[in-house]
């Protein structure tokens, strides 16, 4: 049985991860944050790159610590036949296997779905690849901004009339991981109903494409190809970011007459409210550029957070565009446990970004920080696989546990 101290809706589900960098580990993290027991297979000779980024201590690497909370780490040298055999024994006692290693690498290690199904007939296996596991481009690898560009998403993000530069370069991996976790849970339901496992073949490019699905569907129906449109909304005006002071911006989205009047009132701009160019929503949509220019002049003298709050209090949806500094210091987010503390081997505790869910009653615990390399060797080898201490020492001596 999985370790008894895990709570939450996925308590009792065991996941084996062969994952690196971001998308794969993020999938594992979400399942762990829902209560699953997630065991990450690692080895000194084949580390998750995130253990090396941003420092020299592989047990205190900032990127790694920021993702892998509530994950268990077991060391296995998969370059040895014995190591591969041990991995298979772990998989035989698991429900789900997730990998995001290079296309073809799982098959070369004998860890393809057909081979694993022979060991664990109802296994759920999920492979996360840039383009999925097969097909004409299935061999290619790449990074998140490439997924986003290929997916159709980047083409829709940019300032009007400029080269579409897309979302921030960090966007993409985490969403692909979230969709992998989602598909694994769907497969658990199918297994629960029928006893059947299955193979899930996830394309990170398509993960991004699915985030612009409505735009693509509309294009298929109307023939109008969507393009990067700044902050334009076809059904709201004003809709965008308006400057406050030197570097602040507040988002404002006004959908109707009441919100428009409240906006003009809050800005103390009766002339704007009476301006015939902006009389109806249709007028405001047609004269959007002039409207944005007039509004920007009016918002610029204000403090961002203060203006946004006054607008909200007047019934106008508005919020400050939060910088990283604003976010880290935000009392509301800390109060809601959006940011929370977990255990940390070096400093005792460490702040992390908590899950987006609060589940009650009996919600999952998110309390333990990311694991040391091999921190859970004892649990996995002794309790799960039933090896003796002597057998384990022998594997360590021969660098099978490495």
């Amino acid at each position: 049985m999985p370790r008894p101290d895990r709570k939450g809706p996925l308590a009792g589900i065991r996941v084996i991860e062969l994952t690196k960098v971001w998308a794969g580990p993020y999938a594992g993290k979400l399942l762990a944050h829902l209560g699953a027991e997630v065991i990450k297979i690692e080895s000194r000779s084949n580390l998750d790159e995130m253990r090396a980024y941003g420092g020299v201590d592989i047990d205190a690497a900032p990127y790694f610590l920021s993702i892998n909370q509530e994950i268990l780490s077991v060391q296995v040298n998969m370059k040895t036949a014995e190591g591969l055999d041990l991995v298979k024994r772990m998989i035989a006692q698991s429900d789900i296997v997730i990998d995001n290693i290079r296309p073809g690498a799982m098959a070369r290690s004998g860890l393809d779905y057909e081979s694993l199904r022979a060991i664990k007939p109802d296994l759920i296996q999920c492979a996360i690849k840039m383009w999925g596991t097969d097909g004409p481009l299935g061999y290619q690898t790449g990074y998140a901004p490439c997924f986003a560009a290929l997916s159709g998403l980047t083409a829709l993000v940019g300032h009007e009339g400029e080269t579409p530069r897309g979302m921030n370069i960090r966007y993409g991996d985490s969403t692909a991981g979230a969709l992998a976790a989602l598909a694994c849970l769907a497969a658990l339901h199918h297994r629960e109903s029928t006893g059947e496992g299955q193979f899930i073949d996830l394309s990170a490019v398509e993960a991004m494409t699915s985030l612009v699905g409505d735009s693509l569907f509309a294009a298929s129906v109307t023939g109008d190809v969507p393009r990067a449109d700044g902050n334009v909304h076809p059904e709201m005006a004003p809709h965008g970011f308006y400057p406050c002071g030197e570097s602040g911006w507040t988002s404002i989205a006004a959908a109707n007459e009441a919100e428009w009047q409240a906006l003009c009132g809050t800005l103390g701009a009766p002339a704007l409210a009476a301006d015939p160019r902006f009389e109806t929503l249709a007028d405001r949509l047609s004269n959007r550029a002039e409207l944005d220019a007039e509004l920007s002049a009016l918002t610029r003298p204000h403090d961002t957070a203060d203006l946004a709050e006054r607008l909200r209090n007047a019934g106008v949806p508005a919020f400050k565009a939060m910088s990283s500094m604003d976010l880290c210091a935000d009392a509301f987010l800390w109060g809601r446990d959006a940011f929370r503390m977990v255990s940390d081997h070096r400093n005792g505790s460490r702040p992390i970004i908590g899950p987006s869910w609060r589940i009650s009653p009996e919600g999952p615990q998110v309390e333990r920080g990311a694991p040391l390399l091999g921190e859970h060797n004892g649990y996995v080898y002794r309790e799960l696989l039933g090896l003796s201490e002597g057998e384990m020492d022998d594997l360590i001596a021969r660098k099978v546990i490495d």
Partner: protein
Amino acid sequence: MTTRGALEGLTVIETAERVSGEYTGKLLADLGAEVVKVERPGGAPSRAMGPFAAGESTLFAYLNTNKKSVVLDLADGADRKVLDRLLARAHALIDDHDEGWCRAMGLTPERVSRAHPALVHALVTPFGQDAPESWQGARPINVIAAGGWAYHSPSETPADKPPLKGAGRFLSDYEAGIDAALAAMASLLRLRREGRGQFIDISEVDVQLNRIDCVLGRMLAGEAEPSDARTAYDMGGPGTSFACRDGHVFLLMTSRAHWQGLCALMGNPAWTRELREDWLEFDCTPPNVARFREHFTGWIAGQDKHPVTEAAQKAGVPMVPVQTANDLPHHEQFIHRGFFQQAVHPAFGEVSYPTAAYRMSATPVAVKAAAPRLGADQEDVLDAAS
């Protein structure tokens, strides 16, 4: 091939009226759950949102595939009782309304769990439960502002350019829908095993934060400096989009091998020798990035996106086309995977549905039914619940 969906046997009631909740329902419906959409008299708000074709909303048609529709006026006592009967035989309720509405309709978490202890109740809201009332009307552009992605998008945005709302109108709604469907499915698994329901509070802003865990997390922990810089999430380096003859390409370059490949692709012009062979690894300064971009911009402007990126891939250079809605349906890999599903829609005729990023061997996602007519399933669903 079986036509069984992964979630077959699960019944979900959707009272949601914003895209975040509707998309949660779509994810579950496309995976095979029976999702009953409860629409207000006159129809769901998304039926009135464009773009329109043949008098119908393409947005509604996209968001509500594989769902059933019943019409109930939840402010009406008799109809509200019908909803309770639906919930009594359902496994999950998906909602996305603010506190005031939930109170008025008797759908607060407390009321729902008391009346239906064996129900998973997922409530997706901009800031989660207990947020100040004036925050609860936040729209997607406000959510993406509150979560930090707007301020930091695109990379390298100068201070005088506005932050961006992201792709399309509903990016933060789709992200939130993923987490809501994920958490709901987890809780539904527990329901099947233990027979007990749970309440799930999803914050759309928290989803935005979680998606940047390893960048913002380092700042929270004091390992990277949080700041007011628009570039705080950036990675540096020359990677960005460039205009070419027939569109745009995205180039990401981080290694000597990438640089050598690109130089060869360009025919080794003289200007490339202004930069060290290993400049990407050891001399990737802003002036060098600027110098590179100035020259490269001129060269790439004369190229066509598909041939040049194919040649780049062969040369080991991560340069890809910035694909548009026109490119995707013709793209060989999308075709191979069957990402777009052709189907006939009753109003639109032949259409192409984007499906899911996950190909599931036993339970493939499919659009089996177009979005329902208003109240299409009124009798069937209500009879079953009576």
